[in-house]
């Protein structure tokens, strides 16, 4: 059984035919943390039993075994400064990790110093920062310009109307900053028609901006209490994203282990696998690794990585 057959079998789907060997996959959004370490973790909460367990590269490996994941980008899940180092220390020992997205307090006077410190590690590829309602602050703009000058990227928080609006304003102000919108399939769309038009106008603004990428993560939905991997359920939303971001700016990401709350890794991968397989070999490769290389400039650390 090859990887695709395994994947499709695991998802209970009849195999696809006529495809060449699968593209290698870089998963650009996983979290690592260890609740058992001294000092504990700021997230997840102890009461969140699915997530509150040691979540280290080995667990990711066993979850994704046989699925063709050859590298990951670790995204912060802690506002503690030293957790940037904690993740980098793990990454140093594990070549699966091709980059990290840290958490530095933008707008604070010490930002520049912290950026200098972590930027020295080539695995440190960017930061995640909630810039909603912050882009009028001159300090925020100047510090994010410094991030762009360091050739690092910015990951966004969970998208909504305000995020899209401020992303337009941010990229007006700093056009050379690469920005990755996290979890766009899970966007909270406004219901109000005026607000909906506003949201759509923001997306149209972002459409021609090549430095803005979107992670196709948190895609799974439940239908009647059951996680569905029926591509037809997801196709309209994926088509919308494709229409805006096209072949060069959509990026594969799982949001593991948070993704476990919605459904198994194999299912989320199956949905996007099938969608991008239909778009052809070149689009498939771009989605699974080439676009993330452009967005993150992640580091190839072992021969299996593209």
């Amino acid at each position, binding site marked *: 059984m090859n990887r695709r057959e395994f994947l499709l079998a695991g998802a209970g789907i009849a195999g696809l035919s006529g495809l060449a060997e699968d593209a290698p996959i870089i998963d650009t959004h996983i979290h690592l943390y260890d609740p058992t370490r001294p000092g504990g973790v700021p997230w997840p909460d102890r009461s969140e039993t699915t997530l509150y367990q040691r979540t280290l590269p080995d667990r990711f490996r066993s979850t994704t075994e046989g699925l063709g994941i050859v590298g990951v980008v670790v995204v912060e899940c802690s506002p503690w400064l030293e957790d940037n180092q904690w993740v980098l220390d793990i990454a140093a020992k594990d070549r699966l990790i091709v980059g990290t997205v840290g958490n530095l307090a933008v707008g604070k006077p010490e930002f520049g110093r912290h950026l200098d410190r972590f930027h020295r590690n080539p695995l440190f590829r960017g930061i995640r920062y909630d810039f909603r*309602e912050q882009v*009028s602050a001159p300090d925020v703009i100047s510090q994010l310009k410094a991030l762009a000058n360091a050739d690092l990227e910015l990951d966004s928080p969970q998208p*909504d*109307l*305000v995020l899209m*609006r401020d992303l*337009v*304003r941010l990229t*007006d*102000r700093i056009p050379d900053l690469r920005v990755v919108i996290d979890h766009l399939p899970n966007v*909270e769309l*406004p*219901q*109000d028609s*005026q*607000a909906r*038009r*506003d949201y759509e*106008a923001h997306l*149209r*603004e972002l459409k*021609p901006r090549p430095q803005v990428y979107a992670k196709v993560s948190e895609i799974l939905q439940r239908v009647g209490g059951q996680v569905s991997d029926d591509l037809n359920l997801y196709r309209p939303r994926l088509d919308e994203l494709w229409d805006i971001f096209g072949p060069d700016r959509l990026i594969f990401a799982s949001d593991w282990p948070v993704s476990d709350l919605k459904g198994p890794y194999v299912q989320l991968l199956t949905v996007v696998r099938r969608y991008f397989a239909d778009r052809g070999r070149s689009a498939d490769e771009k989605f699974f690794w080439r676009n993330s290389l452009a967005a993150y400039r992640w580091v190839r650390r072992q021969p299996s990585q593209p």
Partner: protein
Amino acid sequence: MDRRTFLFAAAGVAGLGAAPGATPIPIIDTHIHLFDPTRPQGVPWPEKTDPVLYKPALPERYRRVTKGLGIFGAIEVEASPWLEDNQWVLDVAAKDKIIVGTVGDLDPGKPDFRKNLERFQRNPLFRGIRYGNLWNRNLGEQLSRPEFISDLKALADANLALDSANPDLALIGALVRLTDRVPSLRVVVDHLPQLDPPTEKRARDAYQYNLHELGKRPQVYVKVSEVLRRMDGSVPTDLDFYKPRLDEIWEIFGPDRLLYGSDWPNSDKWGTYPQVLSIVRDYFTSKGRAVAEKFFWKNSVKAYLWVKRDPTQPSSAS
């Protein structure tokens, strides 16, 4: 005659400042439209089918409608996207000193914008242009075009203002982006009271944030025009009905950034000129004479740098 008009008349109030012995506060109306459907080339607006508006709206009629109300001057705001209507309005204004300024219609981002700006700015009565949800335009969609931004910088460099109508959530957001990009441009948000804030909480928060952003920017002014609204087929004329909306705008923009504008003759769709005036007159005079003076004329001097043409018109030096 309704109660308010009656009181107005009975008190024999000319203009504002009803307290005995107080000098009435002069009023500059910063938003009226002039057009003449009977001229040979006709007009692009209003529609022939509009019985309320489709008749000549010229200074003489405006003077008649506002007689005794203390209006000393008015700024004409474009009601036509035809280039030569900028000249038509300036020609009308040249003959009547009640017009202290005009807000024209030029198309920023188009190749001939600079030439047209150069032509009309020579006339000191030409105080700005309007661009917004009008004439099938969309301000937000233009903001990513460098030539649009640079033309608006040229407008700011000419010390002229930009009016924008008709506000919705997207236009308010676009004005935040615009003033990010061209902070030196004075912007006037027309008819803000007419905007229906979104009811959904997230969207309302987004709208509130945008408005507060504009509130922090001293170069942004708001016209308290189109205040009257139709509710279930009738137009309330008591201040209590409008007060919450006016309070919200007041809290964000304060005493120095709000301008009086009637939107005459468009305002005839909601009420008579005295009705339009008395709502805001009651609201702003209750905040004291200094505030009312700012609202009725002093703030508009700063926003438009309009031209005093007649000794009765107020000026900051006097």
